[in-house]
């Protein structure tokens, strides 16, 4: 029987790994949950690619400002110390390697750190990529937040992605509901296995050869 932690617990786990002073972009969807668990006593500066550094939490009811939104087009606030800028400057921050961390969702991550998260490649599907490819190649650390398995039980960690790629060799770490994996030159390494999960049980679930991360 494998252990699965909740999405909130996973978000909390990721939040704990982000140091004070980090510049962080949280991707649309589950990664935005991470913001809820960043310690209130630490200053961590959130970037949203539509032109804001120093993004704060959602506004109170009645204080929604249609001019102040995040990349997911949700209402947000700006903290003291924030700054606005246009799209080219904003993506310059990402593409120029100035963000410390971004957290993204994934359909698949390969042993070499390839990320597939923008298209299932299904025939007839309407493609849409947004800023995913820029985030994937831009941040110093690209963390993926995802369930380890698809709804039909297939591993999202794979030898090679079968879905269309978002970025090549860009992922540095994968936070899943079962365990945390580092992407190493030798493939995935188990950084931390949750609950009753073991390297062996994770190997069985993923079908991949896994190693404990160095120093863990």
């Amino acid at each position: 029987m494998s252990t699965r932690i909740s999405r909130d617990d996973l978000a909390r786990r990721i939040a704990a790994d982000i140091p004070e002073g980090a510049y962080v972009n949280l991707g649309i969807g589950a990664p935005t949950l991470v913001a809820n668990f960043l310690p209130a006593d630490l200053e961590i500066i959130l970037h949203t690619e539509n032109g804001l550094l120093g993004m704060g939490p959602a506004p109170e009811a009645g204080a929604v400002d249609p001019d102040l939104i995040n990349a997911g087009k949700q209402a947000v606030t700006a903290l003291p110390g924030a700054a606005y800028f246009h799209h080219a400057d904003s993506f310059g921050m990402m593409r120029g390697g100035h963000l410390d961390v971004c957290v993204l969702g994934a359909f698949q991550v390969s042993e070499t750190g390839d990320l597939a998260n923008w298209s299932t490649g299904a025939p007839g599907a309407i493609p849409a990529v947004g800023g995913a490819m820029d985030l994937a190649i831009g941040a110093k650390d690209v963390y993926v937040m995802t369930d380890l398995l698809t709804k039909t039980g297939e591993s999202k960690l794979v030898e090679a992605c079968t879905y269309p790629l978002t970025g090549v060799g860009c992922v540095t770490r994968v936070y899943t509901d079962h365990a945390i994996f580092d992407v190493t030159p030798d493939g995935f390494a188990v950084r931390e296995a949750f609950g009753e999960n073991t390297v062996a049980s994770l190997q069985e679930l993923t079908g991949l050869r896994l190693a404990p991360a160095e120093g863990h």
Partner: protein
Amino acid sequence: MIDKTVASVADAVADIPDGATVMIGGFGRAGQPVELIDALIAQGATDLTIVNNNAGNGDVGLAALLAKRRVRKIICSFPRQSDSWVFDGLYRDGDIELELVPQGNLAERIRAAGAGIGAFFSPTGVGTQLAEGKEARDIDGRTFVLEYPIKADVALISALKGDRWGNLVFRETARNFGPIMATAATRTIAQVDQVVPLGSLDPETVVTPGIFVDRVVAVGERPWVKDGAFVGGVDLEGRPL
């Protein structure tokens, strides 16, 4: 005296020809030049190429322009949304051409057009479907893909305030694509909440200098801003609560 202000949004868009490439600012509701888009729909220009981050939402604005089949091609990063049914239908029927561009490449290609750059090697999209057929090059140990500028005949953008020289300031994340689109179009048309007297915008804080702006049209303050101050009381679409 230089006076770039025009009396109405209808006047502002009157001479946009059929076949024009039109950039439209905005990211979601923020910075969307709602009144200018409506004026463009009323004006009737067709066979347009539109550059926007998205491909329209619901049945209004850009989606309404699409629904009238005025758009031949759209260049954007994220056409598929929960309420992009107009675009979705046209695309599935093969009635609209789509050039899908990663958002950072979209922004940088627009900026390149405005800054006179012939082309640039981008780090984004390397090794993906969206770089297929494009020239790649290894520089300093990393692979880049060659991307070309996106120019336009017209840019329609939305700013907070403007003066008669065309200087503009924006509000919060409504800034988004406006400043770069202003540089990349032969003719830039800005709708503003308010036209203010020349000299009342601090030269240190002008975001778009008037050199990039050809027409300025006042559309009045939005419901959530009164006398320049945020007053709230609306939903994300700007509708009163």
